[in-house]
């Protein structure tokens, strides 16, 4: 294989991985900071119900 191509591929993996990691952490932090408290009973009730609709 052409070494420049391998370099391109590995560089691409690294760069895209970094972008993904960066935005992933950003989203996680945002979700943490803007967390909305929901009543856990809502989910429990929903689970007990038949859920056809």
């Amino acid at each position, binding site marked *: 294989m052409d070494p420049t191509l391998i370099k391109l591929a590995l*560089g*691409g993996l690294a760069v895209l991985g970094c972008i993904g990691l960066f935005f992933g952490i950003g989203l996680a932090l*945002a979700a943490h900071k803007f967390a909305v408290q929901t009543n856990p009973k809502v989910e429990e009730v929903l689970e007990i119900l038949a859920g056809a609709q």
Partner: protein
Amino acid sequence: MIFSVRKSIYLTVLLIISLFLLGGCRSEHPFVKKTAFKDADKILIEFAGAVDESWARNPANYTVFEKPDPDIRLIIKDISISADHKKVTLIFEDDLNKNQPHILTAANISHGGKSLGSAILNVKKFYLGYLFSILIGAMIINNFVFTKYLGLCVFFGTSQRKSTAVGMGITFTMVMVASAMISWFIYQFILQPYRLDFLQIVVFIGLVSLSVQAVDTVLRKVNPVLFKAFGVYLVLVIANCIIIAVPLILADNQYNAWESLMLSLGAGLGFLIALFLMSSVRERLELANVPPTYRGLPIAFVLAGLFALAFLGFSGMSIF
């Protein structure tokens, strides 16, 4: 409340300043300061330092063409150079069509006897008028729904009520601008320098869903009323093809920050206009006596075709 208003003003100012910086810092060649149209048939190039006169006076060093027609080279009649050798004016045989951006290639710029490499320069008409023409072009003349037939499933899905149509249009415009700016930034400053532009579609899809998710998360907390009003449409934005078409167009045309902002804004507002027009007709249609086989989607498609015909009247127009 006052604090948050002030904070958002700060944020907006910061965003505008950074846009200025980003728009300004992209120069195609470090030795070229500025290119501009002058009079009817001249292009002015301003260099950062003095260039050699023998190089500057040789017309073989320049190739100029309109961006859409690379094979039609414009003929240079004369070249004048200023006394300090920093400004070179190319005079052409024919008048220039300033509505098209021109590509100017200056081969082996020579400064003090040594070559500084070639420069490929974009010459564009100034500027506010050009930006405005991009906005109106994307909004009306090349309306994405009616002339390019993009985003049809969301278009037909949410144009039954006027209120939902307007809500969808506004949500869409916001997310469109945000995601297009992020995609523009990533494309210009990460994908292109690392020669990864063949991955643009994958990256853009990721960025679109990222911005939708981010708006969803933040809005849920910051403004629950608006979030309730947007409801399911926020997620539906992901399924719209306009939102992926715009970053691809930006990447294709090498737009800068302001042009990208205008194109994405125009695309969003154009979608809003299309939804509003369609929904106001469909609301009336419910009272009309439509034959049973045509009720619902079929008549909506006929309507969209009629709208597209009407929008055809705008085609080929240019502003300024």
